[in-house]
């Protein structure tokens, strides 16, 4: 199994397409960091304009933690599209170049084959997130330093002390890993039904876009299906950055306002992964491989 995964990883990382995602993340991250380095104060003034009508805010608002949060807000919406480039190519790519049938002549079961491919996809996804963490968090801390994190929510403001932030990013990235693996599972599942990569890649992107729109529109009809859409739960990483308060309105360091929501989202996402991969295995086992 380990050898199978190694082979799949070799194939993934030998494709130039794989590095598009890494380059895109690096480019976007560095552009945002450069922009905030040059015009960070103006950006902070714009974002905090409403709050500054009533309050005087003093301190280092634009710091590494804040920049990373901005980056995650911007990028974690688009990273699924980059993941689709690889995940949706995993089986259909083999079918396209005609190696799928050849591979299955080897003494490995179809289940092993699918699981190895999926684990390799997961490793690629996690590698992409580690890359994002290195550039988005560590490089931002290096450039902008650390400090308290001031976040604006729709109805309230959250201020986190700097010694209470890093573990939240760890949690957020781990959560994002599960969320992105869910996206990978969707692409992986769709790659089962085509004999070229373009179809599953476009289909995965379309599903992500449509489901994201449904998740963000506050209409009663959509509210019924929202809890079951994986896109609704992709943004739950933000819950790591909301803190509980006590009766005196003092924040409780190390707490999360709504841990149940994180658990619920994780459950939905993991259920998606299990169901999608199980169906993929089920179909693939019965599939007549002709290419």
């Amino acid at each position, binding site marked *: 199994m380990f050898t199978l995964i190694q082979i799949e990883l070799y194939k993934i990382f030998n494709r130039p397409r794989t590095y598009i995602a890494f380059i895109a993340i690096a480019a976007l991250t560095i552009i945002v960091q450069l922009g905030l380095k040059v015009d960070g104060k103006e950006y902070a003034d714009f974002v905090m304009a409403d709050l500054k009508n*009533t309050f005087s805010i003093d301190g280092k608002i634009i710091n590494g933690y804040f920049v990373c949060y901005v980056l995650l807000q911007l990028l974690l919406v688009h990273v699924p599209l980059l993941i689709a480039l690889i995940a949706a190519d995993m089986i259909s790519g083999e079918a396209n170049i005609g190696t799928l049938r050849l591979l299955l002549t080897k003494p490995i079961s179809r289940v092993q084959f699918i699981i190895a491919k999926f684990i390799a996809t997961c490793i690629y996804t996690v590698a992409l997130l580690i890359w994002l963490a290195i550039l988005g968090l560590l490089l931002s801390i290096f450039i902008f330093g650390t400090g308290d994190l001031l976040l604006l929510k729709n109805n309230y403001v959250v*201020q986190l002390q700097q010694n209470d932030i890093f573990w939240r990013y760890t949690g957020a990235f781990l959560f994002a890993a599960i969320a992105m693996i869910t996206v990978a599972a969707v692409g992986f599942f769709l790659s089962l039904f085509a004999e070229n990569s373009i179809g599953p890649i476009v289909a995965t992107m379309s599903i992500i876009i449509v489901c994201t729109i449904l998740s963000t529109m506050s209409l009663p009809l959509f509210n019924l299906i929202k809890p079951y859409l994986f896109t609704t739960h992709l943004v739950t990483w933000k819950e790591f950055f909301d803190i509980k308060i006590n009766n005196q309105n003092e924040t409780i*360091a190390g707490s999360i306002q709504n841990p149940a929501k994180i658990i619920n989202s994780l459950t939905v996402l993991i259920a998606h992964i299990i169901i999608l991969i199980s169906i993929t295995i089920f179909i693939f086992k019965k599939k007549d491989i002709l290419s």
Partner: protein
Amino acid sequence: MKKLGFLFLILLCFQSIVFSQDATTLLNKVKAKINLVNDYTATGKMKTDITFIKAPIGKVTVYFKKPNKFKLKKENGISILPKGGVSINIGAIINVEDFDIIDSGEEIIDNTITRKIILLPKNETNDVALSTMYIDAEKLLVKKVVTTTKENGTYQILISYGNYSQYGLPDKVVFGFNTKDYKMPKGITMEFDDEGKKEMREKMKNKKGKVEIMYNTYIINKGINDAIFN
């Protein structure tokens, strides 16, 4: 018996002198006491109690230099103070000019009889519309200030004293104010999920805010670089 009667008479006279002193004189005496302090650096803790702000209690350093330079810095952090918060500084409260002064009797604040003095600005362009001070005439300490401004509404400052009362410097300042509605566009916050926020919205109907500063130490009249206030 005669001695006791004489002492009682002296006390009565003293009390009447204190209470009958002109409000302006009293204010000037308080000013004179406060003005003994040219500058100070104080350390303490700040607690922000505003319904729509979840903020931690943080260590703060406060810098003051006469006549009204004031800076509050939160250690490695971000401080959120209500606009007009400069009045948390007792020097800025008391060093007012061009006001009509009205003596409005006495009131008990924290079990202390205080003189209630109303200040009305002569200058119509002044942001302060009305300011009421409650002064402990015996100790020459401002115990409470209620100020109504044109731009930032009404705020109230409650002041407690301890080790540094001889300089008129507080141990604790509680700054109370009314807050405006807070609502951020979803396009800026990028949060499209409002579920579970009903409790928060309900709580936000209380639009009173409070900032407390508990002072631990003061370094008085040792000089402060002006660059700190920039």
